[in-house]
C-alpha cells in the first residue's frame, strides 16, 4: 500500500491506496508552514483507515517550489556564472528576468571566457586567473549557492565541472547546480533553469527534512518520493539537488489522477481549486506538453512542462455585486470563514452555486436572499470563463470528454458546450493526490551517435536500453517500462552529423508493480 499527498496552495490532499483501490482519502487546509497541513492529512488518513498499515512508499506532490519562485520567497542569493565569453557580451546571466526576481537572487552575475563551439573546438581559452578572481568574488560576497553554465555543456560539460571543483575547494559547503544537469540545448533557458534550481536548494533541504520528520512522527518508515513535472518520481536525496524539477508537478498529478479515476486517455481536465482552474489536456493518458518555452514566475526555462492554462476562477473567487465579474481575487483557504454560506461576508463563487441549488455546502439559508439576476449573471460569467478556455485548449473542434476534479469542481456547470460528456468521478476532489500515488519511475539516457558509423535505429535502441537500465536502477519494473520520448539533436561536427539522442522511459515502481496489475 502507499500514500499519495498533494500539497496545493489552498488544500493538502491525501489518499491511501491499495493497488487500484482507494482505502481512505482526505482533504485538509494547507497550513502556512505546509508541514502541519501534511501532518493533519496523515492524521485524518490514519483515523479513517483505522491505523496506517505497513507502507511501500509515500509519494508527495508539492507546489511549494513553484510558489516560492512565483512569490519570490525562500529564494537563496545565487552566484550565476556563465562560461562563454567573448560570446554573449551585454547579455549577462539573469538577462530578461523580471526585476523583482533578479533582485531576489541578488543579481550576482559573472561571465568567464571558455566553453565550446558546435564543432567541438573551444569557444575561447579558459582564463585561470579570471576563474580565481571570480571564485574570490563569490567568497567575498559570502555566497554559497552557485549556478554554472557553459556554452555547449550538454555536449561537453568539462568547463562547468572544472569551475565547480575550484569553487568547492574554496567553499566546501557550496551547493552547486551545473546547467547540463537540469536542462537541454539552449544556453539561456538552461542557465535560467540552473539559477532557479540553485536558488531553491536551501529551501529544498528544509522541505525534505520537514516531510521526513512528519513521516517519522507517524512511524512511517517507507521511502519518500516527490513528484517531478513529467509525472515521474524522485527520491528525497534527488529533490535536495534538483528541486526545480518539481515545477508544475501539481497539474501533472491532477491530470494523471483524472485519467486513473475515469479510465479516459483523451480528455480535457479542469482542476478547480480555491483560486484558479487549471485546464490541461490528456493525450494517451499523459498530459500534453507545452510547445513553447515555459515561463516560471516570468523566467524563461526549457523544462518540459504540461500545457496548462490557469484561469482565475475557483471556489473562493470573489464575485462582484452585480454578479458579472468573477475573481481574480479569491478568499483562498479562508473560504470556510469568509464565504457567505460559512457565515462570512464575502460573496464567492461557492455561494453562487449554493444559492442556485447546484451544490449543498455550508448554510444555504445565508444565501437565500441573493437576487436571481445576480446568480444568473455570475453563473453565466463562470460558464463563459471555463468554456472559452476549454475551447482554446481543445486540440480541434471535436467535443471531448471533460473531467472536473479538485475541491472547487462543484462550481462548474455539468453541461459545458465544448464537452462531449462531463465527468465528476468519485474522489475527484483528491485526484492530484491519486496522481502522485500512482506516479511512475522514469529513466532518461543521453547518448551521442554518429550515423555514418551506426544506423539510426541501432543508436536509438542503444539509448533506449540505457534509459531502461536507469529506470530499473531507480526502482522501475522492467516489464512495465515504455518509451515516452525520443529527441534527436544534431551536434554538428562541421559537415557531418554527430547526433545527441535523448530517450525517456517510464514504468511502475517494481515494489508496487504487482499491486497495480
Amino acid at each position, binding site marked *: 500500500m502507499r500514500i499519495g499527498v498533494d500539497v496545493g496552495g489552498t488544500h493538502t490532499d491525501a489518499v491511501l491506496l491499495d493497488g487500484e483501490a482507494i482505502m481512505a482519502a482526505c482533504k485538509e487546509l494547507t497550513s502556512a508552514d505546509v508541514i502541519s497541513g501534511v501532518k493533519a492529512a496523515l492524521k485524518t488518513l490514519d483515523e479513517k483507515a483505522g491505523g496506517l498499515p505497513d507502507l511501500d512508499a509515500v509519494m508527495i506532490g508539492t507546489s511549494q517550489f513553484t510558489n516560492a519562485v512565483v512569490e519570490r520567497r525562500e529564494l537563496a542569493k545565487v552566484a550565476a556564472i556563465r562560461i*562563454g565569453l*567573448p*560570446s*554573449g*557580451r*551585454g*547579455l549577462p546571466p539573469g*538577462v*530578461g528576468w523580471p526585476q523583482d526576481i533578479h533582485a531576489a537572487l541578488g543579481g550576482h552575475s559573472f561571465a568567464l571566457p571558455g*566553453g565550446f*563551439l*558546435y*564543432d567541438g573546438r573551444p*569557444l*575561447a581559452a579558459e582564463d585561470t586567473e579570471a576563474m580565481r578572481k571570480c571564485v574570490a568574488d563569490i567568497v567575498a560576497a559570502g555566497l554559497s549557492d552557485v549556478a554554472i553554465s557553459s*556554452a*555547449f555543456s550538454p555536449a561537453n560539460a568539462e568547463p562547468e565541472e572544472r569551475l565547480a571543483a575550484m569553487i568547492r575547494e574554496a567553499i566546501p559547503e557550496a551547493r552547486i547546480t551545473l546547467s547540463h544537469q537540469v536542462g537541454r*540545448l*539552449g*544556453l*539561456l533557458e538552461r542557465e535560467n533553469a540552473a539559477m532557479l534550481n540553485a536558488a531553491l536548494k536551501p529551501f529544498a533541504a528544509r522541505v525534505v527534512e520537514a516531510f521526513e520528520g512528519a513521516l517519522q512522527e507517524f512511524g512511517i518508515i517507507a521511502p519518500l518520493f516527490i513528484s517531478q513535472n513529467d509525472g515521474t518520481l524522485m527520491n528525497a536525496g534527488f529533490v535536495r539537488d534538483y528541486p526545480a524539477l518539481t515545477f508544475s508537478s501539481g497539474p501533472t498529478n491532477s491530470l494523471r489522477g483524472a485519467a486513473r479515476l475515469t479510465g479516459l486517455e483523451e480528455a480535457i481536465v479542469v482542476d478547480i481549486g480555491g483560486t484558479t482552474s487549471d485546464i490541461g489536456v490528456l*493525450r494517451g493518458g499523459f498530459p500534453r*506538453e507545452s*510547445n*513553447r*518555452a515555459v515561463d516560471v514566475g516570468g523566467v*524563461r526555462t526549457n523544462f518540459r512542462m504540461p*500545457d496548462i492554462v490557469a484561469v482565475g476562477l475557483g471556489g473562493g473567487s470573489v464575485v462582484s455585486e452585480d454578479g458579472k465579474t468573477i475573481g481574480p481575487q479569491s478568499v483562498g483557504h479562508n473560504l470556510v470563514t469568509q464565504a457567505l454560506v460559512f457565515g462570512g461576508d464575502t460573496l464567492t463563487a461557492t455561494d453562487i452555486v449554493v444559492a442556485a441549488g447546484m451544490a449543498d455546502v455550508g448554510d444555504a439559508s445565508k444565501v437565500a436572499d441573493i437576487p436571481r439576476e445576480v446568480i444568473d449573471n455570475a453563473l453565466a460569467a463562470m460558464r463563459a470563463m471555463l468554456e472559452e478556455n476549454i475551447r*482554446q*485548449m*481543445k*486540440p*480541434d*473542434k471535436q467535443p471531448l470528454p471533460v473531467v472536473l476534479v479538485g475541491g472547487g469542481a462543484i462550481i462548474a456547470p455539468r453541461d459545458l458546450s465544448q464537452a462531449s460528456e462531463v465527468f465528476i468521478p468519485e474522489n475527484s476532489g483528491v485526484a492530484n493526490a491519486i496522481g502522485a500515488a500512482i506516479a511512475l519511475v522514469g529513466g532518461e539516457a543521453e547518448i551521442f551517435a554518429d*550515423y555514418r558509423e551506426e544506423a*539510426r535505429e541501432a543508436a536509438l535502441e542503444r539509448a533506449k536500453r540505457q534509459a531502461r537500465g536507469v529506470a530499473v536502477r531507480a526502482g522501475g519494473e522492467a516489464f512495465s517500462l515504455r518509451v515516452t*520520448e*525520443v*529527441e*534527436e539533436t*544534431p551536434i*554538428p561536427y*562541421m*559537415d*557531418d*552529423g554527430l*547526433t545527441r539522442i535523448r530517450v525517456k522511459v517510464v514504468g511502475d515502481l517494481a515494489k508496487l508493480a504487482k499491486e497495480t496489475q
Partner: protein
Amino acid sequence: MTQITADRLDDIAAGAAFLATGGGGDPHLACLCAKEGLKTYGPATLIEPEDLADDAFIIAVGGVGAPTTSLELLPSVDEAARVVEAYGEIVGRRPDAIVSFEIGGANSLIPMVAAAALDIPLVNGDGMGRALPEATMMTYAIAGIAPTPAVGLDYAGNTQRFDAADVQAYEPMIREFAMTRGGMAVSAEFGMSGAELRACIVPKTVSLSAKLGRYLRTGEGNAAEREGDLRALFEGSIYGKLELLSSGLVVDYTSKVVGGYDVGQAVIESASPGSPPLNVAVKNEYLGITQGDTLIACLPDLITIVDYETGWPINAERLRFGQRVGIFRIGSPAHYTSPEGLASLSGLIASVKAA
C-alpha cells in the same frame, strides 16, 4: 519616420518569426539582444524607402550561419554596430541608412541595434520578405547589386573583408567565415544607392511584422480560427494571400548540418483521416511539402508551420515529435515570381521536387 522603441520589439519579433517560414534563428534571443541594445542606445529610427535620396548610401546588415548553433553561441549586444563601424573603417564609407537582409526571424532585429547604436536610420523593408538560406537569394542580389566589398565579424570581434566577382562567389566565402567561427557571424554587405534599393526592396515588411506580431500576441484561437484574420492581414500586403493548408501531428523530424545549413525532413500525420502523411523539406527554412507523390506547396510561396492550438509559429529546429501543428501557405511577393526571382530559387525548388 517612426521611432522603434524596446517595447515594440516583442511584436516585431513575433511577426518576423511567422514570416521566417521555420528559419531565421531563435527570435527570442535576437529580441532579448535587441531590447538590451535599444535600452542601452535609445530607439531606432525607421524610414520609408521613398524617404531615401537617390544617391544615399545604404548597406545591408545581418547575421549569417546555422541557426541551431545560436542556441548555444549567444549573440552580443554590440556586434551589429561593430560590423557597420568595421565596414566604415575597412571600406571607407559610412552608410546613410541600414537595411535588413531578411525580415524572417533574427535578421529583422539585428540591424535595428546597429541603427540605434550608430544613430543611422533603418529602412522599412528587407531583401527577402521572409527567411531564405543564401545571400544569392536576396532581392538585392537578384537585382544585380554587388555584395562586396563586404565585412564579416565573428563572435570574438575578429573581422574580415571580402571581395568577390559576384554573389555566387561571395556566398561560400561568408558562409565559410561563419562556419569556421562558431557557426554564426554578422556581416555588412550590398552597398547600394537609394535609387537601387527602392527598385528591389521588399517594402513595408518591418511595419507588417509589427502589425502581424501584435495580432499573434493579442488575438485568440487556434490556427483554423485565426485563418480569417490572418488572411485579411496578408491580403492587404505585398504577399496578397494566405491559407491554412493542412493540420496534423509531427511524427518524425530529423535534421543535420550539411554545408552550413540545417537540412532535414519532418513527417506530419494529417488530421484528415485516410490522407497520407505530409513530408516537409527543410533547409534552414520550410521549403516545400509533398504528400504521396504530389507537391502540395513549394517555394516561392511561404510555408509557415504553427502550433495548432495557438497559431504561434514554430521554428524548424524546435519541431518535435507529438506536436500538433497547422501549416499555412502564404503568397510570394512578385520579386520571386519573376523569371530572375524564380531562377535564384531554382536549386532549392529542384531539391524539394527531387526529395
